[in-house]
């Protein structure tokens, strides 16, 4: 017997499974199909303004910085200003996201680089799939539009998030993902990001910038 068969046989022996399995199978298939939500906290709920306020407060609690601007057109200048104010070099790497491509980066002094990171970029920007008000968390999906390496390798990560894509909870992101990728389908990587990278492994001292970004700046566009 190979390892798979041996493990399955032992699980079934321990569980006392024998004979008619229809009710067990039915229960499992129903749960996988329906994906019941369980207990969803109230904290993130509310209309778009309430969700924005909760998202901002929770993200700042996790040491992210947040700026809210009027429209997508205002985003490039907000990004450039953030980099200037923090004495960061005027370079910015981004993916092929059409919403990023449509922005007026030429109006800033930033040098724009495209594609995945090889680990030598100081700044990168990505367009969020969604924001989660409950914990001030960003949802970012992999692919050519927003390569996953941009979320981890640069020192400064700037994420652009549409105000009306701030959802209440994790369950709403899953619903949106099923809409975009089909039921049971996913991007290769879905990153939930709450604040900049950190470690407390040296005598419990909390330090930002462990292996991922030292700064996480979120530009929310109206």
């Amino acid at each position: 017997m190979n390892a798979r068969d041996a493990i399955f046989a032992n699980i079934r022996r321990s569980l006392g499974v024998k004979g008619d399995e229809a009710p067990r199978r039915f229960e499992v298939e129903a749960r996988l199909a329906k994906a019941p939500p369980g207990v969803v906290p109230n904290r993130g709920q509310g209309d778009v303004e309430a969700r924005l306020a909760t998202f901002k407060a929770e993200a700042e609690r996790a040491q992210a910085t947040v700026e809210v601007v009027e429209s997508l057109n205002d985003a490039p200048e907000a990004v450039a200003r953030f980099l200037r104010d923090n004495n960061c070099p005027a370079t910015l790497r981004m993916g092929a996201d059409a919403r990023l491509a449509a922005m007026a980066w030429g109006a800033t002094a930033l040098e724009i680089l495209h594609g995945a990171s090889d680990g030598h970029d100081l700044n990168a920007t990505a367009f969020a799939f969604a924001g989660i008000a409950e914990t001030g968390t960003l949802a970012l999906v992999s692919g050519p539009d927003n390569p996953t390496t941009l979320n981890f390798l640069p020192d400064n990560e700037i994420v652009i998030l549409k105000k009306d894509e701030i959802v209440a909870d994790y369950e709403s992101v899953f619903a949106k993902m099923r809409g975009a990728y089909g039921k049971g389908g996913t991007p290769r990587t879905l990153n939930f990001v709450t604040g900049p990278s950190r470690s407390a492994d040296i005598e419990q001292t909390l330090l930002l910038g462990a292996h991922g970004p030292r700064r996480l700046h979120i530009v929310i566009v109206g």
Partner: protein
Amino acid sequence: MSVIATTPKFKENVHAALIDARLQGALSFSRNFTNRRAAAAERLPEFEALRDSARAIKDHTLAHLDLYLDAYEQKVRESGGQIHYAEDAEEARRIIIDLCKSFGAKSVTKGKSMIAEEIGLNDALEAAGMEPVETDLGEYIIQLRHEAPSHIIAPAIHVTKKDVEEEFRKAHRDLPANRDLSQPEQLLAEARAILRAKFLAADVGITGANFLIAETGTSIIVTNEGNGDLTQILPKAHIVIASIEKIVPTLEDAAQLLRVLARSATGQDASVYTTLSTGPRRPDDPDGPSAYHVVILDNGRSNMLGGEFEDMLRCIRCGACMNHCPVYQAVGGHAYGWVYPGPMGAVLTPSLIGVAEGGQLPNASTFCGRCEQVCPVRIPLPKLMRHWREREFERRLSPAPLRYGLAFWAFFARRPALYRFATSIAARSLNLLGRGKGRLSWAPLAGGWTDYRDLAAPQGRTFQSQWRAKSGAVK
């Protein structure tokens, strides 16, 4: 089992830990964890309901584990990933070594994984001529020290800043000897630079998984540093090593468990990075691993299903039980002698390496019950430890003094008049010994207790005689 257990020498380990002044200083951390967990729970009105939900999800999944494992396997294959099963540690090591060799691996980065510790993966990789690089800062520190983790989420909790500086000076010899490493920020910056180069050079990345999702064939890792992500997205292959009980049915179920995991572990509402990975790089992906393999380990767990230790399989490895354990706080994690310390280790270790080897651990409990109070999936840890004590006693594995002591006590307990007489003598003599201080720093046959702390001296008469007097007064 593969990692050599010093668990049978538990008593010696404890003695060494209690007289280790440096360790005792490092162990003063626990207030941070307990206060933060309490604050996080307080901040979320639904926290207790989420704990019930988390327990129910785990119980449901365990009762249908064969079916969910099968569904998970199908989804992994559909997404282009490959799945391997290992009955024990040796088989898991062989599968991973063979995979690494097939990718021509010289350097292997690792995210923090207790299962990798359980199977002794680093030693096996080294023996096969590969360089394993732990990338979690705490794991990196203990890898340099050739130590095992002493805590399941804070592996270097026993190490001081000064120790880290010494290790870095020994290990990073290319850097200027006169550099300043007195601040934690400087230590972190140095580790970040060293490990960044290792991340970019690695051929294979190995991570554990906090959860495996049957609905989508997804593995989830949770980190604060981002090291797990750099481990899994940069090399050409990503290998996930996880045990059978990590399966959950759906994304929604994972979200329920994630809500109690971070709060119970570090007191964060959410860890910084929660990453869901499904299969290898897609055709148009500009980054990510080209190969994605999952190694599913049993190593004794399927035997725990349906039995009196099944509850232990709900464990999500948050570490809250050890953070709240007076025994763990006194002796640290290494004294437990194997991979898993604290109350969860005291229950799990005898299950996985046998009661003959690990049977002493369930005795290291004051039965204060705090571990059960804070467990996010409500595992009745004290009850499970009591079950092990019973088994150890039944199999005559407990030490002779304990067995004779219990027999001696039982002789009196069965003869109430004699018991009352003997205990009243004992209470009076101990009271005299305490000489009005109310505590004893020495008592006959109680050196095991009084070497490390005082024994409270009986105040007045025995419980039974006070009870009789009180109930007499009420009547």
